[in-house]
């Protein structure tokens, strides 16, 4: 079982917040990563740069964006952030817009986060758990759904 308290601590969450646009939404995800001690501010710019360079491919499922960039000096530790938007925003992805959940990911390599990614994948492929995550009131509730 992934150590969710380590990879998704309270500081990494922003629940039911407003974002002006997709850049703002990624900035919120970046702030969660910085607050949790996973990245420096430079990583936030790198995540935005990834979308500017490669398009909104990070919107991988309806309503879900996985904001991330590649391992770099701006990544201090492997971890994630969780931003639930009160008003969904458009990323320009024709299949999966608008986005209501932005998960920020900072990885030092492609392996360290595989367990927590497995927990997230397992939850978000389940309709019941996806609904529970949208309704969850606190970070603890969200970690409980991911860990179930």
């Amino acid at each position, binding site marked *: 079982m992934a150590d969710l308290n380590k990879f998704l601590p309270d500081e990494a969450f922003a629940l039911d917040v407003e974002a002006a646009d997709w850049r703002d939404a990624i900035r919120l995800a970046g702030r969660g990563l910085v607050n949790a001690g996973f990245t420096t501010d430079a990583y936030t710019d790198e995540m935005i740069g990834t979308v500017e360079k490669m398009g909104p491919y990070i919107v991988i499922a309806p309503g879900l964006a996985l904001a991330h960039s590649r391992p770099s000096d701006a990544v201090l530790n492997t971890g994630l952030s969780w931003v639930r938007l009160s008003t969904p925003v458009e990323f320009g992805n024709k299949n999966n817009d608008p986005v209501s959940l932005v998960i920020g990911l900072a990885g030092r390599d492609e392996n360290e*986060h595989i367990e927590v990614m497995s927990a997230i994948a397992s939850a978000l492929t389940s309709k019941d758990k996806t609904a529970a995550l949208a309704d969850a009131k606190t970070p603890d509730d969200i970690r409980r759904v991911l860990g179930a």
Partner: protein
Amino acid sequence: MNILCVCGNGIGTSVLLKVNVESVASDLGLDVTVTTSDAGSAKGTANMNDLVLTSAELAPELEGTTTPVEVIHNFMDTDEIQEVLERNM
């Protein structure tokens, strides 16, 4: 069957896709080896695989590879992944 999951950086969306592909393959009783890659290096490694999975935005970057490239629209939809795997068996 060797499957390559491709995303922009090789650590994020492709890892999520790999997890789901492995889970679907296991349910189907398929013997698969799933690896991940960033779009830049995928052109070199694609030909060593039997199937390449990626997103609609990144598929054009893989043009010219001889391995079949399939687009997954919803990485969290195991039915879509299953349909693609069955079509390429």
